[in-house]
């Protein structure tokens, strides 16, 4: 039941405003002493205080909402949350403004003017759904189903699953989001390839062990390109403060002196985009000084395996020892190593370390029949060989003694771990950086131990059979639905048998969508999330090759502020016949592109269960609801229903779209997740179901790989070798055939992907660029989540325009003062920002976060624009080749720019009072019922 609060807040504030003395009494006495304005107090009924969760960013922190007569008047963090402990950051608190913002759209809108103008006609939901369905069906009828495409937002946006599956339902392969290859996919997928399980991303809730306060063992944490105090302000930000207070040491690798770098024991201000060099210097130092965990590296990683120089793959025992009979099952191959016991090359079967027949040499070069084999460890060692601390200092701009101090902290700890942030995902080395970070934790044996980052939770992580990994969609769900994709860890025979059980026509249809997906031949890692390669989609829209996407259903946000090289997208909008958007507000994208916009619920209105916090799961509540807004999954669901009505049958895959079509389904889904019988039951007894808690002893699990499973062997890992594979063999197979994603069909081959971390100098390097001599990178600021909150007056008055963080020495050369407007230009365009002079960046580096300006199309402006050209760092970013080989990631970070004196764009607001038009005006809107 909602708690009732004794004193209504508004009446108290009113009272204290009326009589300052009363407030003073209140400070020391109980609330009952306070006299309230009787009439005013009467007008407010009881205040309800309900459980909910913030959805101001990915973290979804538990919170309480205070509701008076249906109006949410106050938000605060839930003190019972295990990591955020009552914190609620400003992005969450400012929902009080967003929810009731004059910028909310409460009804479907149809474009009434040209694209680029802010002229709209309010239409009914029926009309809106019909319009969308007519456009989709008629375009597909005319041009085929590949003319449809969808897009969604990145981390924190609501419609991942919906956006992936909407095109499937219409038999189109095309979907993208500005994150994906540029966010998390590389780290997520690489961990799966190398470790068979959850990754090292702290922002995406994979790394939670350091904040586990039951066992609480983390001695040392490396934040590699992550700043949890900013990107998860209330959650891991609080967690980091507690962790440091417990004495945990930290190293932060970050070109910017982030709040976490400020608190770090060692800060490594790496030159943007050169992390691979730094990683290799860590490897070299660790190998050279024998700081690695020898036993773990020998028996639980594939580094001792001899690699065939022709195939680059590990040699299987049967290849060199034809008569060798492996003691392990088919799904667990035996490989070959150089055995130090016999001083000879020997088969290396999988076993518990202590029962291994061999003592493998990690670093060895062997010539057999005139062919030279190196161990994977040897290959890594040679790759790292040039990376002395001094060389790393020269290339990566980090003093050698600092690197050494950092590695020592990392290697001296009993248990430590690397938490890997988003920066590398936005560089050409998107796959190489996580490969290196995973590899380091593996050679250190920081795996599945209490206190390290690579740990897996819950009893479900404790294997009873040989662990395997499913691919295609989250946890391989599409593989399970459509029967496409090999399960890594099954034997070839097992995979063949498994795949045969699926209906072949659905399998073929799905497989064709995979293979036809744009950009897939080159960047097969994208299969892990079923997304297209963004620059290739743009190219297809522009040229019609290999097919022309013509009807666009976008499910989130401001594409013009979030996509790399936004202008290149603006240029192809005229090529798209009809563009559908959905969002709680209009953004630059809607102004410039959308023909139809569906109004969405804000998070205070939308029931949901999302991220967990440690062993607890929380409710995002329907605290109120105004206008005709709907939950995120509903417009697409309704449009598909309409298409089906028009066509009789949808052309795509079944089940295709995975998303609720009605609010009742949304609510039942939430009730199910929290184990309540119904939504009504959940509402009536919220405290009984929220939070849903897994007992700590079940939740915190360790050493899963050592557990003996059904075949009598230790479980190992969900990889082909059943070991950690810092030498990532799967990448090689993937490049050659699309394995495991396209299995049983083979995808056309591309150049091999690098199986280990290799150094990549950014394509636009400040070294030798005299025209654009500085290197720009970015990172989160606590005021905004992606494109959101730019219309939250309390955020904008504090941070009205983007800081361009620049070293004072550089600024002096350029004649630029603190807070002076500057022009920042790259080879793609130029924008404005305000110089923030700080010793916190290298003199060769500038740092600037994404921005867009919704005030630019405020009614009060004489010169209206869509607000995405003025201060948007994505005017500068680079979306052309070279891409990351595996994932096709383009370059949002670590490219070159120049900075000059500039001027404030005349339609940008800076002064606090200028933001008055953004203050909430919709509090008197009546609360409304579900539309669908």
């Amino acid at each position, binding site marked *: 039941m909602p708690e009732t609060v004794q004193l209504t807040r508004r009446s108290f504030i009113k009272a204290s405003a009326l009589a300052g003395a009363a407030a003073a009494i209140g400070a020391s006495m109980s609330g009952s002493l306070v006299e309230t304005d009787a009439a005013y107090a009467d007008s407010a009924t009881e205040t309800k205080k309900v459980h909910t969760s913030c959805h101001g960013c990915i973290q979804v922190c538990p919170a309480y909402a205070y509701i008076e007569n249906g109006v949410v008047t106050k938000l605060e963090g839930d003190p019972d949350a295990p990591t955020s402990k009552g*914190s609620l950051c400003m992005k969450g608190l400012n929902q009080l403004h967003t929810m009731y913002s004059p910028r909310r759209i409460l009804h479907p809108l149809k474009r009434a003017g040209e694209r680029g103008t802010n002229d709209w006609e309010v239409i009914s939901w029926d009309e809106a759904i019909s319009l969308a369905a007519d456009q989709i069906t008629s375009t597909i009828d005319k041009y085929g189903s590949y003319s449809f495409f969808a897009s969604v937002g990145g981390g924190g946006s609501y419609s991942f699953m919906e956006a992936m599956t909407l095109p499937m339902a219409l038999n189109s392969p095309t979907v993208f989001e500005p994150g994906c290859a540029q966010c998390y996919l590389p780290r997520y997928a690489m961990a799966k390839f190398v470790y068979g399980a959850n990754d090292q991303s702290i922002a995406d809730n994979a790394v939670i062990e350091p904040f586990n306060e039951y066992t609480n063992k983390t001695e040392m944490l490396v934040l590699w390109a992550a700043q949890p105090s900013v990107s998860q302000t209330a959650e891991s930000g609080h967690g980091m403060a507690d962790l440091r207070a417990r004495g945990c040491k930290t190293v932060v690798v970050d070109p910017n002196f982030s709040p976490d770098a400020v608190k770090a024991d060692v800060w490594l201000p790496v030159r943007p985009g050169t992390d691979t060099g730094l990683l290799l210097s860590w490897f070299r130092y660790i190998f050279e000084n024998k700081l690695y965990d020898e036993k773990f590296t020998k028996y639980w990683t594939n580094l001792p395996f001899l690699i065939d120089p022709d195939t680059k793959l590990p040699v299987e025992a049967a290849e060199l020892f034809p008569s060798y009979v492996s003691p392990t099952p088919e799904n667990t191959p035996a490989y070959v190593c150089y055995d130090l016991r016999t001083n000879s090359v020997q088969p290396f079967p999988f076993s518990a370390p202590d029962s291994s027949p061999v003592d493998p040499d990690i670093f060895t070069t062997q010539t057999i029949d005139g062919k030279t084999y190196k161990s994977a460890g040897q290959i890594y060692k040679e790759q790292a060989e040039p990376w002395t601390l001094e060389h790393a200092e020269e290339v990566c701009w980090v003093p050698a003694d600092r690197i050494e101090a950092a590695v020592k902290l990392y290697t001296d700890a009993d248990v430590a771990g690397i938490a890997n942030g988003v920066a590398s995902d936005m560089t050409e080395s998107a796959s190489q950086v996580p490969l290196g970070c995973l590899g380091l934790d593996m050679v250190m044996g920081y795996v599945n131990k209490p206190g390290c980052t690579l740990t897996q939770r819950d009893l479900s992580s404790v294997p009873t059979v040989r662990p395997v990994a499913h691919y295609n969609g989250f946890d391989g769900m599409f593989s399970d639905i459509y029967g496409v994709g090999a399960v890594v860890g099954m034997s070839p025979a097992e995979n063949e048998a498994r795949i045969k059980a699926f209906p072949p026509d659905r399998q073929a249809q799905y497989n064709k969508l995979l293979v036809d997906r744009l950009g897939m031949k080159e960047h097969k890692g994208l299969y892990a999330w079923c997304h297209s390669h963004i620059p290739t989609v743009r190219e297809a829209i522009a040229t019609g090759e290999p097919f022309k996407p013509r009807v666009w259903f976008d499910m989130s946000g401001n594409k013009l502020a979030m996509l790399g090289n936004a202008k290149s997208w603006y240029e192809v909008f005229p090529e798209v016949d009809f563009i559908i958007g959905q969002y709680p507000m209009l953004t630059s994208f809607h102004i410039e592109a959308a023909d139809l916009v569906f109004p969405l619920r804000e998070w205070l209105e939308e029931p949901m269960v999302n991220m967990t916090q440690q062993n607890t799961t929380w409710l995002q509540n329907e605290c109120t609801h105004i206008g005709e807004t709907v939950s995120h999954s509903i417009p697409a669901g309704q449009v598909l229903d309409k298409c089906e009505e028009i066509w009789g049958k949808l052309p795509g895959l079944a089940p295709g779209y995975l998303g609720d079509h009605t609010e009742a389904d949304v609510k039942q889904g939430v009730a199910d997740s929290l184990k309540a019988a119904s939504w009504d039951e959940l509402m009536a007894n919220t405290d009984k179901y929220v939070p849903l808690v897994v007992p700590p002893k079940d939740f915190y699990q360790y050493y899963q790989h050592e557990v003996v499973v059904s075949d009598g062997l230790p479980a190992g890992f969900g990889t082909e070798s059943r070991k950690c594979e810092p030498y990532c063999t799967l990448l090689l197979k993937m490049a050659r055939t699309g394995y495991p994603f396209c299995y049983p069909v083979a995808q056309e081959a591309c150049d091999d992907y690098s199986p280990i971390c290799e150094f990549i100098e950014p394509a636009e390097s400040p070294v030798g660029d005299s025209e654009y001599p500085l290197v720009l990178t970015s990172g989160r600021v606590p005021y905004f989540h992606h494109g959101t909150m730019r219309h939250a007056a*309390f955020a904008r008055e504090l941070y009205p325009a983007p800081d361009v963080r620049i070293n004072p020495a550089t600024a002096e050369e350029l004649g630029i003062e603190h807070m002076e407007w500057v022009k920042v230009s790259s080879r793609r365009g130029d924008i404005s920002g305000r110089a923030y002079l700080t010793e916190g960046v*290298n003199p060769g580096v500038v740092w600037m976060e994404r921005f867009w300006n919704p005030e630019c199309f405020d009614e009060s402006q004489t010169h209206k624009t869509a607000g995405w050209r003025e201060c948007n760092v994505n005017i500068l970013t680079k979306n052309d080749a070279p891409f990351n080989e595996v994932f096709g990631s383009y370059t949002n970070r670590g490219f070159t720019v120049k900075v000059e004196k500039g001027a404030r764009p005349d339609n940008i607001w800076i002064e606090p009072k200028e933001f008055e038009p953004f203050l909430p005006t919709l509090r008197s809107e009546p609360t409304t019922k579900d539309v669908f």
Partner: protein
Amino acid sequence: MRNCLVIDLDRCSGCDTCVVACKHENNVDLGNYWNQVVAVGPSGTFPDIEQYWIPAQCQQCENPQCVHVCPTGASYRDSKTGVVLIDKSKCIGCQYCMMACPYGVRTYNETSHVVEKCTLCPQLTANDELPACVHNCCTGARFYGDIDDPTSDAAKAIAAASADSIHHLPDPGDSKPVTVYILSPKVAAWKELV
């Protein structure tokens, strides 16, 4: 009794959440603040630098200059709680208190024509709740209570800190600011901002 905030700068990440929490809780106008967060540094030269943040609001001075200059008695220090407050019904908006406060932590409300500042959220603490900025602080850096009462959160935070980590804002005369900032030398050296 000396009620105040105690702020642990070893924890504070400068996220500005306390500023916004206060504004929502107390309906503070655009452009006005009852608290603000100021960056101290980075000091030093790249890359050998250090930094901390000062979340600033009324320091609840024992000898408050703002009270001494107030012509109407609107500004006063409650001798029982130690809290410095403004009786808005008496305030004539002359703003002398703003000039007299050594820390510049008062704000003039152009709508109601009175001066305002941190009240320590009596509307919450009277109900045994925490001030909004304390409740929502993203690093658990803020503590509220009577520093003379060893059982209060504020006093406990001070007791848990080592002596060389306890700081007050510099006091140009004899204001005796009560608010305590905790900053340990290993995080950054406290800068005497004079």
